[in-house]
């Protein structure tokens, strides 16, 4: 049996993520909600969700002693970051007056501003609803998902990568931002695949079948 660890550090409602993973997992894949570093060490692949504020998230990740286990896992097995689970992979976030994050990727997390251009008047924040992802790089996790497909987003901050080559998907909302990044074993996205109907389920299926190479 292959173990898929959904990381629980107290900052996310895991019901939707685990339900969606269970819906697409095969007989040989077990979905387990995990809180301890050793559970992450023992898993075959990692799903790292998250919501709420960056400072709270980082505080919880540190308090639960998960920093090293997460960094280690990201360098040796398939690792899917979702929403805040993508943002905290960066070096810093502008949220909460500046928050140091896990620094697995170079770059920062910035806020959507009401001064950004909007189609009809002001830019509503959070960016909430279904938006398109332009696949900017081929990746096994994109298998069977059409270019410019819609995914469900809810967020007020976005990732700004230092290395453009790590971008595998981008989305437009006020600005063009990196909605999906990947490097090595890590694939991380700002949107919620677990809430993105068929496209999301296809993506989760692809992740569960991805060798990570």
């Amino acid at each position, binding site marked *: 049996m292959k173990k898929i660890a959904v990381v629980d550090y107290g900052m996310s*409602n895991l*019901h*939707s993520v685990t*339900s*969606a993973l269970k*819906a697409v997992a095969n007989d040989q894949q077990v979905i387990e909600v995990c809180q301890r570093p050793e559970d992450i060490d023992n898993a075959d692949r990692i799903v790292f969700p998250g*919501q*709420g*504020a960056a400072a709270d998230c980082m505080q919880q990740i540190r308090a639960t002693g998960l920093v090293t286990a997460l960094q280690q896992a990201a360098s040796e097995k398939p690792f899917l970051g979702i929403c805040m689970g993508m943002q905290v992979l960066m070096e810093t976030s502008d949220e909460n007056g500046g928050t140091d994050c896990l620094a697995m990727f170079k770059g920062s997390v910035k806020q959507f501003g*009401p001064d950004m251009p909007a*189609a*009809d*008047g*002001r830019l*509503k*924040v*959070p*960016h*909430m*609803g*279904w*938006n*398109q992802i332009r696949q900017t790089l081929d990746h096994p996790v994109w298998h069977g998902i059409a270019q410019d497909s*819609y995914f*469900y*987003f*809810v*967020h*007020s901050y976005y990732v700004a990568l230092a290395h453009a080559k790590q971008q595998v998907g981008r989305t*437009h*909302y006020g600005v063009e931002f990196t909605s999906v990044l990947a490097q090595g074993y890590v694939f991380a996205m700002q949107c919620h695949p*677990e*809430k*993105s*109907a068929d496209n*999301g*389920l296809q993506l989760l299926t692809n992740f569960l079948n991805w060798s990570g190479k």
Partner: protein
Amino acid sequence: MLAKRIIPCLDVDAGRVVKGVKFVDIRDAGDPVEIAKRYDAEGADEITFLDITASSDERNTMAQVVEQVASQVFIPLTVGGGIRSVDDIRRLLNAGADKVGINTAAVKRPELVKQAADKVGSQCIVLSIDAKKVASSEVHPRWEIFTHGGRTPTGIDAVEWAIKMTDYGAGELLLTSMDRDGTKIGFDLELTRTISQAVSIPVIASGGVGKLEHLCEGVTSGKADAVLAASIFHFGEYTIQQAKDAMRAHNIPIRV
């Protein structure tokens, strides 16, 4: 491009979907899971459940309904109705809801919105506003908010309330016109536009949809970010797909 959302709303009583016509003739419309699945298959962008159960015992049934639906339908789910505390909110989120709607409790205790946004994040908090026009001056129209399913006036100005609740941390507004609810003559577009332009968060227009054209107007003239309707989808008058086709014909960005 960010799509405008179409949200079917289901009234749930004691675990079953019902639809009251003018609040009296409650018709049983079926199993929540089956209906949610059908709407998902038709392309609904989200689903909203309104818990119209009166007794607190049966409120636990709502959490079970959400759990069942959330295990099988993978689009955002909102639950509103009777939510009084952060604990109520947590219970529904843990059952699988993505957002909860707060209405009467926020009027009684505005701090609840602040507390809830702090605890679970603004993105989970939908502030429901039931508004009624109280001054019909062409120059200065004015709307007030009502609670308890539209029965109790509060004297609070709807636009000021919307701005205040945004400041308190609401992530979205569900705006229902009490003048239009159930009439099938269309949204109160002036109300929708006024509030949508006054706040920085997304606004869902609700109340009065009788035909597909009304959904389009809510977005184009009402400046809503999403449109919510119940009865036109319930009894097979229109499908979500037809609604999307109509919006596409008006060049409104929608999810395909």
